[in-house]
């Protein structure tokens, strides 16, 4: 479904990603792990178009998307969340998700129909699905950190993606919240057949959920394989587990 090949990205002299490969099959939950600064977020920003790659290919459903702007990549079926809660802080929780649904239904440029009557059902469904239905009328900026992160995912779901890309969905969360978020990810994959790509720096969190794991170190992908293969790999132990 998604294939990243030999992708490179430097910032001035710093090589953030230098030769990274990644494959995501339909229906899989794929995790990218690596220590802080390994280039995980940069890789994700390249996939969803926030950054443009210097070199390499990103193929999504047989189409090279590496040159497209973010909004077009999104329309191809890849939605994402961000590492830092990236929401619309002055709008209500409901509106946050609704804007996304409206965009997906190509209704953003309607002028004279009141917005409160459109895309309501879909928005409600998503909010109930992630457990934010009760807070629908709250101003998004006033939510607790954990809820804002969940809202992040809800906004991404509003786009009805084929592939959901989550950049460290558990960053800054307590152990309990982390568990709940992982549970949510698993449930979304099961119930809606979503393909999910996420990254994480805590290895233990990943092994229970992901079917395929790619390990990144200093901008290079070291290995991609099933949890057991990755756990037993000597190279991973050398540069990741050993170093930590």
């Amino acid at each position, binding site marked *: 479904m998604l294939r990243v090949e030999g992708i490179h990205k430097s910032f001035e002299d710093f090589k953030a990603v230098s030769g990274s490969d990644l494959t995501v099959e339909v229906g899989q939950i794929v995790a990218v792990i690596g220590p802080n600064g390994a280039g995980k977020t940069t890789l994700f920003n390249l996939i*969803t*178009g*926030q950054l443009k790659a210097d070199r390499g290919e990103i193929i999504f459903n047989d189409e090279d998307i590496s040159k497209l*702007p*973010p*909004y*077009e990549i*999104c*329309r191809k079926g890849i*939605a*994402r969340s*961000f590492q830092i809660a*990236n*929401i*619309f*802080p*002055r*709008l209500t929780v409901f*509106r*946050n998700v*609704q*804007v*996304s649904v*409206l*965009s*997906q239904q190509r*209704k*953003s*440029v*309607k*002028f*004279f*129909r*009141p*917005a*409160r009557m*459109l*895309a309501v059902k879909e928005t409600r469904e998503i909010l109930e699905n992630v457990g934010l239905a009760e807070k629908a009328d709250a101003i998004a900026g006033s939510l607790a950190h954990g809820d804002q992160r969940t809202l992040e995912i809800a*906004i*991404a779901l*509003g*786009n009805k993606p084929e592939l959901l890309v989550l950049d460290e969905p558990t960053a800054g969360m307590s152990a309990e919240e982390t568990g709940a978020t992982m549970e949510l990810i698993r449930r979304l994959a099961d119930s809606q057949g979503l393909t999910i790509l996420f990254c994480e720096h805590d290895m233990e969190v990943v092994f229970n959920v992901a079917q395929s794991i790619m390990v990144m170190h200093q901008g290079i992908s070291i290995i991609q394989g099933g949890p057991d293969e990755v756990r037993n790999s000597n190279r991973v132990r050398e540069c990741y587990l050993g170093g930590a």
Partner: protein
Amino acid sequence: MSLNMVVGHGGLFQFHHGAFYGVGAYTAALMLTKTSLPMWLGFVAGPFMAAFVGLLIGMFCVRLTKLYFGMLQISLGSLVWAIAFRWYSFTGGDDGIHGIPLPSLISSTKGAYYFGLILLILCVTVIYLIFKSPFGATLQAIRDNPERCEAIGINVRLHQLIAIVIATFFAGVAGVLFVVVEGSVFPDLLFWVFSLELFIMCLLGGWFTFAGPILGAAIMISLRTFVGIYTEYWTLILGIILILLIFFLPEGVWGYLLEKFGFQRKKLLEKEGQ
């Protein structure tokens, strides 16, 4: 009002909105004096011309963000002002155009008043509808977080451009109204100081709200009329008010009222709940 759509809801620094107001006024004035086309055509042409200029300038400006957007707009807008100021044979230069013939129906004070009122109500209604529409919602989302909007499949620049065109269209309507009321135009309409005044109105009233700019304009005009009687330094008072506002009411007067009122209502509900 239309400025607020771009600034408050679109999050763009539209520093030179007055230019489009002036373009609307000038277009109407020129059509009425220099051509023999039907008069109503002049009135219709004003807003469209303003929107067209808005589209042209907007196309350059949306490529930039934040302050740079505003700076470029000031310079491009000032260009328009310079044209009006210097091109004597066409625009009358710094003298402007006076004694513009108007249809008899709206040439009287009363007629002009009702014409203005009807237009105002019409415009406010349309802007309100847009404010409440999916487009308005999307625009507010862009203001809050343009990066996120890109990531949910919204073409941010296109939306901003549409917003600018709509806003400049209404600025053009306002310009035409000015012609109707005053019967003349002059380059000051296009000068950036006037744009600043508009900007302050939005700030004053509360730029994240729908009705804020109206309140802001009312405050500003009353200040000018009432304080202006006592001292010509009424802008000094305005300045002090602005400073206080930025420190104490960053959401503007209307925003503050809304917050206060909304808060009390919530409290009441909670009490009833108990």
